[in-house]
């Protein structure tokens, strides 16, 4: 057995909120469980109650509206997002990020919201969602609040969520017409792996704005300042982007990679990203 905890499966958000607010002892929200259950088994987490949110209809919504704005409920498994044709068409970078996570089996359970709330600097969904300007809606008995995704990440494995809050859904604004998006992840092998370094970007040809975000190179995922491409050549933009990344990153050496390697390979990813995003006649 993984542990001695109670299991609750509310069917509404208020029920879930009450459980979080009123229970004695630590409570954990269970969606896919692919991080939580591993942490419980490894005794890094010892909740008294698990609140399974997968039966709450409101949290299972995966909606693309007519303008292309996206609502991703907290209980939506990654594979569902990956297989949604509209998302594949308009936000390929988002799909690339989701596809890079773990394995097919885990993606039937793991969720985008869960990946973010785990708070890892290596969270694969973070860079692209940051670049897309996503917002997170947090729900509690005290009410609902919306925060830009960048506010969620406070430190390594630390988020801005209060103990009584459930991360309920992600809102991704309608992409600019012809928006291009990409995600690149450096791994130790082609098989499933955590990111050693990662980078995501969007480029809107209509506005000429390039947005970049990087992961696994600082205590939190980092959204960089947008870059006005204007008439600059690709090489100039690449140079700007690399300098911005180099200024922002604080890579460490750990079991996965050395700071040196991260410092070397992240600019490579960023250059490739920019090159792909700015390619003439490029697809979304």
């Amino acid at each position, binding site marked *: 057995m993984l542990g001695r905890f109670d299991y609750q499966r509310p069917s509404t958000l208020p029920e879930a909120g009450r459980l979080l607010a009123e229970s004695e002892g630590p409570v954990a929200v269970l969606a896919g469980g692919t991080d939580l259950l591993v942490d419980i088994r490894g005794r890094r987490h010892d909740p008294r109650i698990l609140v399974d949110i997968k039966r709450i209809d409101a949290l299972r919504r995966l909606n693309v509206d007519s303008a292309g704005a996206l609502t991703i409920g907290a209980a939506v498994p990654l594979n569902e997002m990956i297989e949604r044709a509209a998302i594949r068409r308009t936000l390929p970078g988002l799909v690339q990020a989701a596809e890079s996570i773990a394995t097919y089996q885990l993606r039937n359970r793991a969720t985008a919201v869960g990946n973010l709330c785990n708070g890892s600097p290596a969270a694969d969904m973070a860079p692209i969602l940051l670049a897309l300007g996503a917002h997170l809606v947090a729900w509690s008995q005290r009410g609902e609040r919306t925060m830009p995704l960048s506010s969620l990440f406070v430190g390594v494995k630390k988020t801005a969520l209060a103990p009584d809050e459930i991360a309920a859904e992600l809102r991704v604004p309608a992409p600019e017409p012809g928006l291009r998006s990409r995600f690149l992840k*450096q791994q*130790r*092998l082609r*098989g499933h792996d955590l990111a050693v370094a990662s980078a995501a970007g969007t480029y809107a040809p209509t506005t000429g704005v390039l947005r970049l975000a990087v992961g696994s190179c600082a205590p939190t995922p980092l959204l960089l300042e947008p870059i006005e491409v204007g008439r600059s050549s690709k090489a100039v933009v690449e140079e700007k982007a690399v300098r911005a990344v180099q200024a922002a990153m604080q890579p460490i050496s750990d*079991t996965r990679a*050395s700071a*040196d*390697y991260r410092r*070397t*390979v992240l600019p490579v990813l960023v250059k490739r990203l920019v090159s792909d995003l700015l390619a003439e006649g490029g697809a979304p």
Partner: protein
Amino acid sequence: MTRELRVVGTSVPRDDAIDKVTGAARYTTDLALPGMLHAAILTSPHASARIVRVDLSDARSVPGVRAVLMGSDLDVRLGLYLRDKRILARDVVRYQGEPVAAVAADTLDAAREACRRICVEYDELPAVLDPRDAMAVGAPLVHPDLAGYDHMRGVFFPKPGTNVAHHQKIRKGDALASLAAADIRLEASFYNPPVQHVPMETHASIAQALPEGRVEIWTSSQSPYTVRHLLSVCLGLPHAAIRVHVPYVGGGFGGKAGLGLEPLATVLSRAAGGRPVLVSATREEEFNTMPSRPGLHSTIKIGSTRDGRITALEATYVWDAGAYADYGVNVGRAAAYSGAGPYAIDHCSIDSYVVYTNKVYGTAYRGFGHLEVLWGIERAMDQMARKLGLDPVEFRRRNLLKEGATTITGELFTAGHGKPVECLDAVAKAIDWGRPSDAPSAPHKVRGKGIAMLHKAPAMPTYTSCAAVIKLDEDGAADVLVSGVDYGQGTYTVLRQIAAEELGLPIGKVHITWDCDTALTPYDWQTVASRFSYMGGNAVIEAAADCLRQLTAVAAQALGVAPETIVCEDEAAFPADKPDRAISYKDLALGYAFPNGNAIGGPIIGHGRFIATGLTHLDPETGQGRPAQFWTYGAHAVEIEVDTETGEIEILHIATAVDAGKVLNPLSCTGQVIGGVVQGLGSTLHEGFQFDGKGRLLNPSFVDYKIPTAKDLPRRMTPIFLENPQPGGPYGARGVAEHPMISVPSAIGNALADALGIDYAVLPLSPERVLLGIQSREREKTP
């Protein structure tokens, strides 16, 4: 062998596959005995420490706990070749992860809860983590009492007062002088980190203590008789008092070759009043507590004439054996006598030191030191070729062993050894050696080609033996009984094929018993060393001949003819000129009854055996002797593409040639090659233990210890089998089980040198290592 074979040499599928694809196959943790308890282990957090105090009282109070043990409760010392190990650490701990205490309880949860409540007080001691440091004078001693340990005398030579568990020497000719006089000299050093076998099924054992000290065991093991023997020695019991069963085994690769969790399960069962106890390693324990493949530091010196004839080779191998000797001393021995590669070298000096360190202990691993040694040797060969301005294939051709040459232990190389040169030529051709690679797939990528030789003989005692029994069933089918274990290699199917061939039975009427049982299935040494098909095959041939003799004798008597006139074919015995008088096997299998009722003969049970022949001990000073029953040679050639910006390597094509002598089953032989090459890729590109400064293992799980997945395959793999027969091998076959893995890293390292002009000396060739190598070369170039 010129006769037409019917079954041997065909791709008969495995019979155990049905149980495995349906989930019916039972492995050790699928077994449940009445009253079975579950065990949990408490391990040491320190690499080296004195155990000051162990408090079990709180643990004992957990409901459901039936036994709690610590090291000082037990007076048993274990060891295959050197008895240096306890079941649970006593007085000191020697590696982080070493078992210190254990609990058996009604449930696994209760056992784990109890373990958490055991209080151990340690006094940390200085740890020695690098075997080169461990060899220095004044280094902390991992085994201060080395002098007092029993060991296999005459074969292994531990050095008390040091951390050297064994020192193997090879002295052929005068390498020192010859090197000094050589036209061209090369010296290079290399490193292999320790790695883990990563069987998909972790170690697991069930033991049930019986009256009179007897014990019955079910275990995931490669060697039931070795488990029985070692327990007999360390528990002071006659062999018959210990019964070992081996159900299906989910992979071994050498990690399950010796004693694993059986001793712990046994003492826990005794302490629990005879209730059966299951001890099963978690994956973290598999990495951190169960043994590894020893690491290796090697320094190689080669001397050559200007025109590329190697005159001398000197090598120093320093093995990181970890905290206990286990198989490590034999790895150091075997790798020494193979330690110059498959080359004709007149002057050779090898010193192979097996050194204790405060890390998880090393054991047998597929290749038994040969992958590690040949990482250095085959890389050095390439570097020497380059220094000489010679093509690496041509350089090898000039120096490979050929008929009339002698190995570094003084063994004469004959036609029966196989043809290493043919292996080399076959792989070179397969990747179009000599023709430059096509353009890489992107401007930041570079391609290269590399080649490496491999060789290995079974590393086994000079008197290694095995036996086989064949008994006939009422329906005339044959049952084969052996105690070698088929843990995936496919040998059981080969043995069925051999029995079918020899007995004249269709393959569907030859069965083999999948449970080994030391009370019932006859002796086999160990299922290691790529010798089971060879030795077991020969034993089965002899057992089949014995059955035929019995069938012939009864049939002759029944028919009133001379036995010499009887042939056995198509499941019947009959006079060669009168096939209409055939008596079917099923009418002979349990004896023959005449029409009037009189009976003759009896149950047909044939037995056969094989013992290693012609092997000698190695001279302790010179290493000269005959250690090898047979050698298997081979080669890899590989073409790679390197991303020079990220350091990632893609294998475009790897061709692997093995001189198998005779391919007994193409399907399973191919399976061994593909599986071995991919496992070799793991050692090459991804795998390696990482330790912190205090000797703690940093990557004890799949999160940070990566093995190849289905996404990590080469674009193309070409297995090539040569069939130059092995005298004495069944149908001319040699063992090939370990060989496909050996030298995979060497070939890729050589290809990398070709692609980048950089000589990498340390494994794994991770993207980081490759890229940082490129970077530092760039820095060197910039003034």
